[in-house]
């Protein structure tokens, strides 16, 4: 079986490597990928959305359906992890082969965690809300915020982190982020525009259409950030404790 797999893989590799001769040269400005759609995004995006970061504008405005259902996919993944791991059947053998040393969690580690976690959380909020003008946005801010809770759980214990950020709260945050995103779309729909057409918010906020799109991007990014943050924490809680929420890494 194994030699056969190797031969097949080698043949596929040779065929695909010869096919690269027909691909456009690397970093060619006239390649098909860079000439049709993306110049439009760069040249009109700033006038239409008032967002200098083109990636944020395309992510949350022009391709907002993609991002909405992507956050739903991430939410569904956290639910699936929960359903797979939390089985009520008894008699399962849970042998821990590898145990981290408990006495390694000393005062220095905890002090360092204590001083770095607030900075991480403020940085996460900065990344989220400054996503219009610098690299960043909902995904990055949410992941950094979730990583601060994971660090708390690593340096103290899973129970300690779960007292701060309860599991029920995690699930509520998961759902609320996706609901906030879909709710913005529904409000636009109620104002007589397309679903997720943020220009419909202009009447509510009392600003021009262009600024309404900018504010809509910010609200949507906040929704994505909340969902991603809660999903990262939920994945860690479930996978580190094996589903029983007793003891983590």
């Amino acid at each position, binding site marked *: 079986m194994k030699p056969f797999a190797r031969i097949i893989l080698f043949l596929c590799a040779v065929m695909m490597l010869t096919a690269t001769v027909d691909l456009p040269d690397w970093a060619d*400005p006239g390649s098909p990928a860079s000439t049709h759609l993306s110049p439009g995004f760069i040249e009109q995006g700033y006038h239409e959305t008032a967002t200098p970061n083109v990636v944020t504008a395309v992510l949350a405005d022009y391709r907002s359906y993609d991002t909405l259902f992507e956050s739903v996919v991430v939410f569904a993944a956290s639910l699936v992890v929960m359903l797979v791991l939390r089985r009520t059947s008894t008699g399962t053998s849970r042998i821990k082969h590898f145990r981290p040393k408990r006495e390694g969690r000393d005062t220095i580690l905890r002090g360092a965690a204590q001083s770095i976690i607030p900075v991480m959380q403020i940085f996460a909020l900065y990344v989220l809300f400054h996503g219009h003008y610098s690299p960043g946005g909902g995904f990055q801010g949410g992941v950094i915020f979730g990583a601060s809770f994971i660090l708390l759980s690593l340096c103290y214990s899973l129970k300690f982190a779960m007292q701060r950020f309860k599991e029920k709260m995690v699930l509520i945050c998961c759902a609320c982020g996706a609901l906030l995103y879909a709710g913005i779309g529904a409000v636009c729909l109620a104002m007589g525009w397309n679903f997720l057409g943020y220009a419909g918010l202009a009447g509510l906020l009392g600003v021009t259409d262009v600024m309404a799109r900018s504010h809509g991007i910010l609200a949507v990014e906040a929704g994505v950030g909340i969902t991603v943050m809660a999903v990262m924490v939920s994945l860690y809680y479930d996978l580190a404790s094996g589903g029983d929420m007793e003891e983590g890494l």
Partner: protein
Amino acid sequence: MDEFFFFIVAKYNYWASLILLFIGLYGMIAKNNLMKKIIGMVIFQTAILIFFVSIGVKWGASVPIIRFFPDKQPLLDATAYANPLPHVLILTAIVVGVAVLGVALAILQNIQRIHGTIEEDEILEDMRK
């Protein structure tokens, strides 16, 4: 000689991402340990993402954030910025990737609980009993 050199510089990025792709695929097919298969999946995924992003690179282009002249006028020239569209597609794909990794690891933990091992041949032996 010079033409050959330009050919190498123009294509080596695709070659590297394809080599990574086949390393990951080999890990998924030929490794016996399920954890190694999952790590192969991560490598496979990242290779595809690198291929996607390398399509959007342009000579002399900068990061896709609009720059401003000193008189506050934006510089809206498509050749001055990298192609933002692959970046957007890949941004969502990375976060979906970690969700897929989480589901795969959860199933792995469940297999360990039921069969007591994660080696493929031992699992098959255990299932035949």
